[in-house]
């Protein structure tokens, strides 16, 4: 049997699965976005009306801004912390193995569970761990209902999502640092370079590929954030933390405006493609 046919047959199950679980839902979502479907009522074809409504909807504008702030915030915080920890751990890789495992464990916890953990930390009054600690150390003037203010709720969301996400940048950056040839580091050491100098001039630039992958993956996952928003703030207070993912859910699942929710989904899909296509193209070019 020709090799190409064998390859095709071996790939076929994955292609079918991919088609059914990804391609078909995407095509169906795009199709539904051109219809008005409210509850159990009869659907009506409305063409681009859902998109026109979406782009003139101030609520959706607010949602886009919130998503942008959330995505950039989580990416910056998670990658900065993960990368920094990776650089520090590189000086004592064996001794820091358990520490790295503990940090990576947060990545293995689902976002919904992370949300529930942090709700008890941000709970208002002394019932919340954070407020309880602040009160115990004499900083009760800083204790507040963290999830009740528009700004503090968004910061709380970014902190929670970053905590959940930091494990992956740490892992990728550490792998990148470990791939730096030892001879370069030894030569720098013998030339009298201090650890900070080595970190800044050698380890950081040479571990950039790993950090870039971490940025790309963290950007993608935080762009699609839903679970953590649903659990921690339900998009509140007063929609201040509503991301596009939550907007989609609210429109489609609670208000059952399926067509409108599908239009928001398509916008999110385009945003994900815009973010991921250049990165994938660059990696493909690099592989060639």
């Amino acid at each position, binding site marked *: 049997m020709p090799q190409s046919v064998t390859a095709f047959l071996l790939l076929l199950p994955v292609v079918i699965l991919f088609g059914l679980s990804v391609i078909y839902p995407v095509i169906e979502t795009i199709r539904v976005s051109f219809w008005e479907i409210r509850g159990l*009522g009869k659907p009506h074809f409305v063409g681009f009306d859902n998109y026109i409504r979406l782009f003139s909807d101030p609520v959706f504008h607010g949602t886009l801004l919130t998503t942008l702030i959330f995505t950039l915030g989580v990416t910056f915080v998670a990658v900065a912390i993960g990368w920094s920890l990776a650089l520090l751990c590189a000086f004592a890789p064996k001794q820091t193995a358990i520490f790295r495992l503990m940090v990576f464990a947060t990545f293995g916890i689902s976002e919904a569970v992370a949300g529930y953990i942090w709700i008890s930390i941000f709970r208002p009054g*002394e019932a919340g761990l954070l407020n309880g600690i602040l009160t115990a150390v004499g900083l009760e003037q800083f204790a507040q*209902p963290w999830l*009740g*203010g528009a700004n503090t709720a968004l910061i709380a969301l970014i902190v929670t999502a970053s905590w959940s996400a930091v494990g992956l940048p740490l892992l990728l950056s550490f792998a990148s640092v470990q791939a730096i040839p030892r001879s370069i580091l030894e030569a720098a050491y013998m030339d009298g370079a201090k650890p900070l100098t080595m970190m800044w001039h050698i380890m950081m630039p040479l571990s950039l590929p790993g950090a870039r992958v971490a940025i790309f993956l963290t950007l993608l996952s935080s762009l699609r954030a839903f679970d953590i928003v649903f659990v921690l703030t339900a998009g509140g*207070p007063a929609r201040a933390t509503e991301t596009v993912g939550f907007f989609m859910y609210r429109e489609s699942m609670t208000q059952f405006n399926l067509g409108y929710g599908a239009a928001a989904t398509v916008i999110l899909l385009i945003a994900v493609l815009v973010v991921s296509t250049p990165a994938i193209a660059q990696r493909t070019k690099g592989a060639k």
Partner: protein
Amino acid sequence: MGSALTLLSTSAWAQAPKNIEFLTWLGGPDRTVLDQLAAGFEAKHPEFHVEIKVVTSQGDARGGMRTALLGGERPDLVSNTWPAFRKELADADILRDLSDVWKTNGWDKALSTTWQELSTTDGAVYGVPYIFGYRSGIWHAPADLKTIGLQAFPTSYDDFLATFDPLRKAGFAEPIVMPAKVYAHTEWFETLLLRTAGPDAITDLGSHKITWTDPKVVEALRQYARLFDAHCCGDSKLMYATHWDDAADRVFVQHKANFLQIGMWINARAISQYHLKPGTDFGLGKFPALGHGFDDASIVDAKEILATKIGNNPEGADLFLDYIVSAEGANTIAKLGFTTPSANVDASIYDPVMAASVDYVNAGPVRFVLGDLLPGSLVDEYRLALQQFIGDPKEENIVPTLERIEAAAGRAY
């Protein structure tokens, strides 16, 4: 041997109970009620088996129910708690009109005219209510009120507002704990609307026969603003961060707040979680009187079971509904800590708080929670607009708030 086996299997097949498929989202104590009703019904009617199919969903369960029905489920019965959803199901030709069955089966004797009216959509009745909750009650710890010399719950709205300052001076940070994180901030507004504008205003607003900018609604929101003028609550951030369970903890565990208006599930929580005695450690006060002539009216929520025309066993479905309103069914519900609208219930089963809630509801006209009467796409906007109003509850924000809800209503109906 072969003939014997064939005879046996034929006999078994002939005797297999007929399924009654029941679609619901309910879990926890509500599911226990359904399980026990099903068990009691099957003991009486062994020729039937009630198969309870649960739709898993979070938040508003209507999404899950719609998905199940659109996905091909063909139940004989469905759970419901939203009159607006009942209308949606009826308009989609899913429900079966039971108006005649109510009379022939005597359900109109077990359930009062009020309950029949509440269960009616466009002139037809599609099921029976089996649980109701008094939503105009104000939960409180009597001992905490005694610290300011209050021996009984205030009867007038002015007297109620006058308790806030003394309570604050006595060390309670929040006279009213207002859980504004999701929906519970609307509870106060809805009873104030009922008490100022009357039951017909709730019905008319729910069906958009009057607008949200109607003077009656404006006056209700003004009365709502009086709560905040009288320093009822914590700051807006605290209200936005509070859900009803946090609120209950602050009243009954931390004793940092005094009044909470939320559904009857506090009764079960106070007994099972806080281990409090109903009527002694916690009480349910009747919403204070405003003197507009509607002070005996109540907001209620209710759970009902609706019959469909898409199921395969309408006969079994009707028998199950009949069982639910019977004395046996009603007493099962009462023993599990819920109040039932069926007149066949033995009221001595109720604890003092449940009994009080039944008395309040029976004292006057009742209306469903306004949020449950509204179309799904309007409810969010309504709750959000009120959330933003309580952030700055000034007179000049009253009309703009209602105009915003009215704009959303224009799109929703």
